């Protein structure tokens, strides 16, 4: 009680230093080992990945994305005049030009071949996904098999993940994706009863067909592709088909410099 203001401040300073020391010591001792290993690649077990061979993918073909969007009940929002509403478009699997898909690899004089191509893009199912890190409700999470999955039940529609994703792989449902009669999606497609729709205010993206993998089926896009442009498989299995394709071809990933570790590879 006799302490002067100076004495009090000294003691408070020493006390907080000790406190900080104890906290950091505790942190060092109890450091989670899983934290570090989840960043480095998971060498054992499964890591699903995909190789897209652009030499086999025709520019105007949309078989895979149409199949994907119909089995996953992806709506097609339209403007009042009936044209596609690109601003509110919901995309799981779509096509874009070289400069948008590989902005860090685009050169000054692009070959006609690359200029004309429409590159197939989807969620990269990153090893170190920024969307998972920013999600405040853990609605988006990394599965042990490398799939970055969304739990739509938990999504609160904050769209942090859309800001975090460097690939634009996430779309927000600004409107109810179902029509009034509840049998059709916006855009006119019938609802596929085997997969839920989403509701207004929820973010969605490609799920690497987790529901099909659970039944030992390959993703719908890979199955639908008639040109053999898509190869799906376990990147951790050195004997898998996808590893053979990767070993035999030069492949690139989208924006690898960001350190996200995409699981989708392109043969350009």
């Amino acid at each position, binding site marked *: 009680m006799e302490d002067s203001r100076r004495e009090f401040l000294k003691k408070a300073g020493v006390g907080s230093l000790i406190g900080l020391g104890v906290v950091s010591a505790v942190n060092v001792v109890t450091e989670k080992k899983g934290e570090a290993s989840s960043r480095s690649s998971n060498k054992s077990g499964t890591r699903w990945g995909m190789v897209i061979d652009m030499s086999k993918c025709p520019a105007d073909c949309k078989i895979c994305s149409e199949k994907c969007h119909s089995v996953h009940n992806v709506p097609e929002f339209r403007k009042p005049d009936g044209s596609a509403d690109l601003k509110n478009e919901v995309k799981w699997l779509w096509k874009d030009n070289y400069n948008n898909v590989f902005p860090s690899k685009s050169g000054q004089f692009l070959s006609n071949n690359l200029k004309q191509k429409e590159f197939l893009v989807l969620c990269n199912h990153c090893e170190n996904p920024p969307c998972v890190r920013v999600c405040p409700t853990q609605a988006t999470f990394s599965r042990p098999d490398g799939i970055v999955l969304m*739990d739509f039940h938990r999504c609160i529609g904050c769209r942090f993940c859309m800001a975090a994703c460097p690939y634009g792989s996430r779309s927000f449902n600004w409107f109810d994706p179902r029509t009034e009669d509840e049998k059709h999606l916006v855009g006119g497609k019938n609802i596929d009863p085997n997969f839920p729709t989403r509701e207004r205010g929820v973010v969605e993206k490609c799920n690497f067909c987790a529901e099909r993998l659970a039944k030992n089926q390959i993703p719908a896009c890979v199955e639908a592709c008639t040109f053999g442009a898509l190869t799906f498989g376990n990147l951790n299995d050195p004997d898998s088909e996808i590893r053979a394709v990767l070993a035999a071809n030069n492949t690139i990933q989208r924006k690898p410099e960001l350190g996200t570790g995409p699981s989708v590879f392109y043969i350009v």
Partner: protein
Amino acid sequence: MYDAGKIIIGLVVFVLLALFPLWGSIGQDVAKPKPAIVKGERCIESADYMRANHMQMLDQWRDDVVRNNDRVYVSKAYKTEFNKSLSNTCMDCHSNKKEFCDTCHDYSSVTPYCWSCHIEPKGRI
């Protein structure tokens, strides 16, 4: 207290009005819901168990399936395996949402939002 009489009368009137939902329904007998329409022989657990616990079970199922990729439910009562799925397993037998789910949910005034995403059988084409 000034105007005690007016205030007390006012309070009594207010309390009576506020409690109208309670005393207003005295004497009115609301029929208990009778959820029906079951195709199968028996449910995955006993009817009593399902009546009391289906909400926790479905909540657990959705976490199991989506987050842990654990899709098989083993019945405690019958030791048989079921796919953890509302729209497939449950609605296969309880195929009429209006006459099954809604009867009790309306009675107890709960509005689960399962169906804003999951497809009820009437939506099946």
